[in-house]
């Protein structure tokens, strides 16, 4: 069973290819405000490099945010369109949960990612999330969570993430949506 992993929530596009939940290939591309230029070509090249066709895929995993709004949207639209047209399973995971799972957290730890103005974060303990995912300005976050154990902008472990999602239900591709967390001005 082949799984395609798609992450586009920050300036690194991560595309992973797994066979029976084991990583067989991973590509990371640095892309500043040009995810559209790199996303499909990276998927194309990882498949080609492993002598696979797009219809060999059985499952899509996509990080559906939070992070760069546009980045997340592009990952999500590609993932849900692949799942819809290929009629294969799709699962989503948040960027913060994905980073937490990649790190095996036992004692209380904050997992966070930054954007240019603030911090998305959630609190984890014994490998589970014990808070909602929130967004605070950099100053507010620093004042509020001083002296706490923090993992910031960690590295994704696609195998651990895929394994974690093994028993999670798939979603109807139409219902796959980005999560944004941070409110936009007009909606406040």
């Amino acid at each position, binding site marked *: 069973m082949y799984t395609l992993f798609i992450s586009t929530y920050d300036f690194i596009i991560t595309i992973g290819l797994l066979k029976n939940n084991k990583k067989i290939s991973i590509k990371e591309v640095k892309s500043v405000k040009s995810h*559209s230029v790199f996303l*499909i070509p990276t*998927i194309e090249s990882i498949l080609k490099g492993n002598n696979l066709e797009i*219809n060999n895929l059985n499952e899509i995993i996509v990080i559906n945010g939070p992070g760069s709004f*546009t980045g997340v949207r592009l990952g999500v639209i590609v993932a849900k369109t692949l799942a*819809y047209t290929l009629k294969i399973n799709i699962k989503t995971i948040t960027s913060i949960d994905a980073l937490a799972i990649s790190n095996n957290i036992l004692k209380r730890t904050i997992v966070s990612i930054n954007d240019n103005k603030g911090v998305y974060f959630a609190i984890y303990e014994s490998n589970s999330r014990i808070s909602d995912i929130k967004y605070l300005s950099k100053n507010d976050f620093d004042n509020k969570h001083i002296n706490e154990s923090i993992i910031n902008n960690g590295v994704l472990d696609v195998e651990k993430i895929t394994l974690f999602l093994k028993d999670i239900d798939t979603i109807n591709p139409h219902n796959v949506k*980005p999560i944004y967390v941070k409110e936009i001005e007009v909606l406040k």
Partner: protein
Amino acid sequence: MISSYQLKDIKDIIDLGLELNPKFKELFNISKLPKYENIIVYREKNKLIGFLHYLNNIDYIEIINLIVLKEKRNKNIASFLINNLLKNFNKKIVLEVRESNISAINLYKKFNFSTISIRKNYYGNESGIVMERNKDIYILGIESSCDETSVSIVKNGNTDIATTVLTQIDTHVNYGGVVPEIASRMHTENFTLVLEDLFNKTTLELEDMDAIAVTYAPGLLGSLLVGLEFAKTLSFVYKKPLIKVHHIAGHIYSNNLNEPMEFPLLALIVSGGHTELVLMEDDYKFNVLGSTLDDAIGEVYDKVAKVLDLSYPGGPSIEKCALEGNDTYKLPIVMNNDELNFSFSGLKSAVINLVHNEKQKENTINKNDLAISFQKAAIDQLIRKTRLAIEKTDSKRLIIAGGVSANKFLRAEMEKLAEEKNIKLSIPEVKYCTDNATMIAAAAYPLFFKKEFSNYNINAESSKRLY
């Protein structure tokens, strides 16, 4: 009534064939046809009335015989048989017909066959006409440059097979204009649903498409990117060429959905971002004769609507008020000169100042009257400049394109101008004037033949110009 032949039909087929050609039996002397050959038969109460015999080659179909019983001719039976063939195959079709068989030749012409060569004296003292009908080209169009999520299938660049447009206007109207971030979000949520809705309207499938066309510029960047990425994914999965289309080219080519544009022609492009007069010598050959020096016409409609407390978008709401009003307000006549450029900021300022002054004097404004006075002044400038361009270029054909071409007053005034100047006018149907994917697929058609296909590394461009 229509079916593929069975062995028991062979005798009837030969009998009918003999009516046309005494040598038919010799030409057709096998009892079972090879796999690549087939006969579609038409029966009435079990009696064989007509048949169509064809060869199914790898990349084209050859019609060998099409025969209908003499007393049953002119009853569209031949058309039924041809239609059945077209329904089953989207391939090039070739055939050969006697030059004296005018009714058959006319029938084939009706089905878009055209003569490609003549076999001189093929039938002794009579020539054979070789006719060909090209395969139909289906293009899937995708549009999301602003607040409409749309997909469409267009055949041969001129026939709308199916279209779905999901407008977000009910959401954006709450904010007094399109909120780019919300537009991008809604496109992301809705594109697969819109695609499903489209293919529920037709028996065609994505595999039947010859290309995927998408608006890549200009527009809201975030919205364009979602549509572009959606299009790239479809192109990648179905291995169909990707064609990038400029939104304004889409508006222009929506005129092909009326009837094919003939060049050279003069085009007036009027939208929220454009006000231009363009001379087109050929497909995708644009020579800009004049453009706005400041605001675009659609933009001014929106701004005037805002000053009058009318809802967004300004075009329809001003037009609605204007219907109830009398042209009582004096507004300046702008750009009354020999140039082909436009200017609307003077008119806009005049309206804004008028409203402020009246408010200061605590006078009430008659919105309906001001709406019609503004509309008349704005459209008058479009008419004047278009008339000037017709005279300067001696054009015989005029097309209007862009969102503002939905304006009924503009349409009526343009028709008057066309009559005055004895010029052929084309304006898209109102449903194709607002943003839609049909026009994108139509605009991709000439690019398909130019093989202007894109790689997956193309990016969206929010302010790229067409010309």
